[in-house]
């Protein structure tokens, strides 16, 4: 009972302070909205006028027709005609083109062979948007194959350079929930205790009967709600603006997000006990944020990463969350099917909270 009164006192104080800190309060709403719009429109944009070069080694009417069809899509903008596959690769390495079309000398004959692809599309995979465009181009090229063979295999073989996995744009929004929460949640609590130390509040608090565990839990509670508000915003806007599907249950989505929020807040608290200034706390937060974005599978596929990077990624809450949220939102997986990942996130909470409580001392030495 006494514990509750103390925890409640801190929660009320935090909310009051937060309400009066207009910039932070604005960022609670601003960060998710702005990030979603930025990422969302970037992935939603129709790709047009990608610079392309063509190496037409066959020069037949069929091949010329195909090149015309591809140009008419406006997806590509043929800037150069070259005479070898090597030249295409060279141009791509230089960054002059994002798409290379290679039509082999025996193109007409290949068209008639249903077990072989007739041509190659070289794609600069370092730009994920381009990868999406390649799929559209392949569709167009498929029409060049005469029936009854125009279903399989594809007439155009897509070779993606630099990034072997093609990703669907809808992957971004669920992942973005994780990135936004990693950014805001860790930072909120990372700064929370350090700020009180800097302002001298902590010297007062530690002379009171307030227990370390009470302080830690009370610091988390207000931000859990803020996290849930942010998630709701992203889900709502993602649904309204970008028609992000929700294959699984909304409740499951909130459950995994809640666990993830608490894990991040606990991580922030631990940072808060390590850093002695707000600046240090920020640096530590970014030290976690950057690998979270790069290694978690949000940007690059986990499977394609080298083993050491995978090991680091496994130690980041976001990695597990991305698997969970994509599972629920995109594949419609149930929590039972994902229980392993959920347990890992739960484990993070227990370990991080324990460490934070142990690290925090009610002494000044």
């Amino acid at each position, binding site marked *: 009972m*006494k514990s509750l*009164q*103390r925890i*409640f*006192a*801190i929660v*009320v*104080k935090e909310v*009051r*302070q937060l309400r*009066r*800190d207009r910039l932070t309060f604005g960022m609670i709403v601003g960060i998710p909205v702005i990030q979603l719009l930025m990422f969302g429109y970037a992935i939603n944009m129709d790709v047009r006028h990608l610079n392309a070069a063509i190496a037409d080694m066959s020069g037949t009417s069929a091949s010329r027709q195909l090149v015309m069809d591809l140009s008419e899509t406006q997806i590509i903008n043929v800037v150069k005609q070259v005479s070898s596959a090597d030249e295409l690769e060279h141009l791509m390495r230089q960054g002059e083109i994002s798409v290379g079309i290679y039509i082999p000398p025996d193109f007409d004959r290949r068209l008639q062979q249903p077990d072989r692809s007739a041509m190659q599309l070289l794609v600069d995979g370092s730009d994920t948007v381009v990868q999406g465009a390649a799929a559209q181009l392949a569709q167009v090229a498929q029409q060049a194959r005469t029936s009854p063979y125009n279903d399989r295999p594809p007439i155009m073989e897509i070779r993606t350079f630099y990034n072997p996995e093609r990703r669907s744009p809808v992957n971004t929004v669920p992942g973005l929930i994780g990135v936004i929460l990693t950014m805001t949640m860790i930072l909120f609590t990372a700064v929370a205790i350090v700020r009180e130390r800097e*302002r*001298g*509040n902590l*010297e*007062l*608090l*530690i*002379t*009171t*009967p*307030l227990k370390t565990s009470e302080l830690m839990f009370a610091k988390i509670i207000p931000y859990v709600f803020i996290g849930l508000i942010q998630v709701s915003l992203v889900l709502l806007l993602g649904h309204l603006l970008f028609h992000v599907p929700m294959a699984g249950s909304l409740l499951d989505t909130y459950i995994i997000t809640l666990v993830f929020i608490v894990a991040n807040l606990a991580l922030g608290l631990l940072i808060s006990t390590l850093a002695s200034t707000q600046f240090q706390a920020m640096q530590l937060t970014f030290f976690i944020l950057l690998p979270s974005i790069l290694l978690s599978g949000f940007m690059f596929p986990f499977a394609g990463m080298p083993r050491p990077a995978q090991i680091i990624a496994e130690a980041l809450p976001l990695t597990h969350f991305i698997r969970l949220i994509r599972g629920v939102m995109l594949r419609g997986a149930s929590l039972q099917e994902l229980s392993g990942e959920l347990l890992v996130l739960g484990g993070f909470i227990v370990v991080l909270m324990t460490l934070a409580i142990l690290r925090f001392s*009610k*002494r*000044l*030495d």
Partner: protein
Amino acid sequence: MTDLAIQAHDLCKTFGKVKAVDMLNLEVPRSRIYGFLGPNGSGKTTAIRMLCGLLTPTAGDINVLGYSIPDEAEALRLKVGYMTQKFSLFEDLTVTENLQFMGDIYTLERKLKNQRIGLAIERYELGKLAKQRAGTLSGGQKQRLALAASTLHGPDLLFLDEPTSAVDPENRRSFWEALFDLVDEGTTILVSTHYMDEAERCHALAILDKGKLVAEGSPAELQEKIQASIVIVESDEPRKVGKMLEEQSFVHSTAQVGNVLRVMVSIDQASPEIAVSDAISRAGLNVKRCSIAKPGLEDVFVAATRMKKTPA
């Protein structure tokens, strides 16, 4: 229960190679204002922090209100109040919100809490400021709020670390009136200061220098026991006279007050005023008058912290 609120025995604290507190022995009686007087860096704050369990002593034993510190520091928390040197309440909360927060942290029952807050607001003249954010208060108002907050739970013992360093004399006066009211109600107060006028108000004083206790007693006792004589010198050339006297082996220190020199002379000199006068004449300098004066607390402080020879 003893009649001592604080007992410390051979208390030491070292930070790296620095001895912040060195073999400190203390006995603070209950219901008294006990002062720590010392220059900056003399170990006042470190000593207070050890006494309330915020710092672990390197060596020594502490007993506060019957609790062995630092082991039983948590149990002690309910019985002590601590006012930090720097204002440590929340500047973005209002006066009332800060008091409510502290009431809840000390888990006061709702009715009692509101009653105590009402009393504190009245007692420390915070009524007009109740809805004002603490950050916008003046130095004196902040100190009143901090005192109100640290006494809300009715502590038996109050630690005040340089409470009035940012307060004007008028506010300092009323602040001390409030402290005596608290003592009247049975509270023991340990206050650190480097102001003589504050030190003079304490029931008993410990003068700290470089972590060591160099003198202890009531202000009157200390002035009586001083191991030096004070000679007042009037001269047309006080700077020159002062410099010359500083070089004399029987002179501990000199201080100029207006046109007058206050000279602290070794207790070994049977007639200090004559010794001083002779020395000035020998140096061929002008002197109008030399007379013995009653030592003040500042003299006690200087004698204790700056004397060339070890005080008795």
